[in-house]
């Protein structure tokens, strides 16, 4: 049978600069470069290239670049080259198309349709270099009223997570990403005063020391869940759904389940780790209520227990139910959320944008008078500090960053996480590859990202004349929409620019 697949990328090598040092050959896990002994030259194989840029970055003479493979299809807005090639692939294999990372389709990005305010005459802006700026954030159930006795607070507060900035590292499981990646994020969260999330793969032994900065996840497969695990972290998150693949469970291919992953997840080595779509003990909101409280019992009511759902239709109603079921925080994961592996169509067609979901949930909970009973953590599509500020303004208590965190570690978003051949040592368990991510360097980079955003958020807040994040939270008046329909504006609860 003829193979119709053609390369997606073109490896361009400047022969004047190439010194045949073979670094590219050694560094490409996809074997897109090899050394021709007879010709004594390095040669490339375009069909294997995934545009991860490892060779480009490592080449000491910058002799390489990657271009889109210049194979032209006849211009067709409906039947693009990509669309056509997907069909070839399925005709050949009969299989589900799989991919990594988040939705890359050109749906609207609402962050880019919202603009921030700045103070001018009536309410002077604040200079963050001269005045203290409070970015502190507390995640957890807030009381409805405060009672004082003898000048002291009498109301018992439930446990809060204290963050130095409203950004947390998102849930990425050990198995989908490497131990070195986990180490980098754990250490960075400790240094910058925030948290990281274990994802559904359990918590590796070596990371128990970062417990006070860890949010442990309990997902439908219950991987790695035992009383020690639950008590090791600072909070527990029950994963009901994930933005990248709402309605289905996690999938870790057997190749990525080595001995360490097997030990941490408590599953046999080499077996596929499939999380079922629903938790098989949660079939109603009452069951969720029961699980939340079982986890609180197991941890002596000392840790906030939250629930993560994907942003889908009716997300506001679901969130309301979860708040009433006793969750201390709700994580909303929008359709741009990343993943180590998901069916392509599910990733690209299921779920709704986080901006709309966030606004809808915040509005709904406020209208019902229960906004204070949960913190909302918004996840997916946060690319930079202005996205963070906009998310807070829409109503989020904090945001999760997943893709951005991995990019800080070196990810180039080539979307091949599911192959396990991540050349950056992030989305792989191959020891030849995982050593590429030096956790000392990774931790520094991830921490630097948080520090940089801290500084930028303070600048933007100062510009708005605000010196405490609390004044921005849910403050929709700080936003204006641009290029949005009336309906969008209404759902987001913001005015249009010019109004």
């Amino acid at each position, binding site marked *: 049978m003829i193979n119709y697949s053609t390369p997606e990328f073109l490896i361009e090598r400047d022969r*004047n*600069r190439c*010194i*045949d*040092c*073979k*670094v590219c050959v*050694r*560094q490409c896990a996809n074997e897109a470069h090899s050394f021709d002994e007879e010709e004594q030259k390095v040669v490339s194989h375009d069909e294997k290239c995934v545009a991860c840029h490892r060779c480009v970055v*490592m080449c*000491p*003479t910058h002799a390489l670049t990657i271009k889109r493979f210049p194979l032209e299809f006849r211009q067709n807005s409906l039947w693009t080259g990509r669309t056509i090639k997907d069909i070839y692939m399925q005709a050949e294999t009969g299989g589900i198309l799989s991919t990594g990372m988040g939705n890359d389709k050109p749906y609207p990005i609402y962050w880019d349709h919202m603009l921030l305010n700045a103070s001018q005459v009536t309410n002077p802006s604040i200079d963050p270099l001269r005045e203290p700026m409070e970015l502190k954030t507390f995640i957890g159930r807030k009381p409805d009223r405060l009672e004082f006795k003898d000048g002291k607070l009498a109301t018992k507060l439930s446990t809060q997570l204290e963050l130095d900035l409203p950004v947390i590292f998102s849930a990425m499981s050990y198995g989908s990403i490497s131990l070195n990646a986990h180490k980098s994020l754990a250490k960075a969260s400790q240094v910058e005063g925030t948290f990281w999330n274990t994802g559904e793969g359990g918590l590796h032994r070596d990371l128990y020391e970062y417990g006070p900065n860890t949010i442990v996840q309990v997902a439908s497969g219950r991987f790695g869940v035992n009383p020690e695990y639950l008590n090791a972290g600072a909070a527990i998150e029950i994963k009901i759904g994930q933005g990248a693949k709402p309605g289905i469970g996690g999938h870790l291919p057997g190749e990525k389940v080595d001995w360490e992953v097997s030990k941490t997840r408590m599953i046999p080595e080499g077996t596929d780790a499939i999380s079922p779509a629903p938790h098989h003990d949660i079939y109603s909101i009452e069951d969720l209520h029961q699980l939340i409280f079982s986890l609180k019992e197991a941890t002596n009511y000392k840790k906030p227990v939250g629930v993560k759902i994907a942003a889908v239709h009716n997300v506001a109603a679901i969130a309301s139910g979860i708040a009433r079921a006793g969750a201390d925080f709700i994580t909303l994961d929008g359709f741009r959320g990343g993943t180590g592996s998901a069916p392509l169509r599910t990733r690209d067609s299921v779920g709704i944008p986080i901006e709309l979901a966030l606004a809808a949930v915040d509005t709904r909970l406020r209208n019902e008078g229960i906004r204070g009973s949960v913190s909302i953590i918004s996840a997916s599509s946060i690319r930079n500090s202005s996205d963070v500020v906009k998310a807070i303004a829409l109503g989020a208590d904090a945001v999760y960053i997943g893709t951005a965190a991995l990019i800080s570690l070196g990810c180039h978003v080539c979307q091949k996480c599911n192959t396990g051949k991540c050349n950056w040592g992030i989305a792989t368990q*191959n*020891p*030849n590859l995982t*050593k*590429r991510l*030096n956790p*000392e*360097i990774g931790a520094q980079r991830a921490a630097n990202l948080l520090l940089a955003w801290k500084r930028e958020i303070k600048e933007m807040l100062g510009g708005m004349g605000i010196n405490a994040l609390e004044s921005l939270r849910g403050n929709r008046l700080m936003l204006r929409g641009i290029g949005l329909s009336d309906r969008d504006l209404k759902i987001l609860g913001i005015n249009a620019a010019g109004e």
Partner: protein
Amino acid sequence: MKKVYAKEEYCLGCRLCEVHCIVAHSDYKNDIVKAFKKQEQRPLPRVIVEENRPVSFALQCRHCEDAPCTTACITGAMQKDPVTGVVTCEESRCVGCWTCILACPFGAIARNEQGKKVASKCDLCSELGDIPACVKNCPNAAMVFEER
């Protein structure tokens, strides 16, 4: 005395250390392309990368306090500088007898047979006056230059 120590957990086996060692000892210390394409006799890399995947690491002269190569050298070309502690081979006196190769327990000396036979080994980039080129250019901090 500061020396180079490898961290095998972080070595990628990329051998960029070898590339930069060659450049640092060539006539074109700032131009990798010229060092490789234009230089007549390309210097040998003084760092040896040992590899048996997934383990790999870079090894070079340890500049031993009591260097066996200096006692073995029949011409007195191998000497330890009394001030800097760096062990260097004075190539004009070296006759390529390889007795140093016989003596070095780290196997850190290579045979340069491109012209006159001389022993080739790490000199801690003493001429550059900077940290050794291998340490400076390692992409994953798999080598450190420190006192122990």
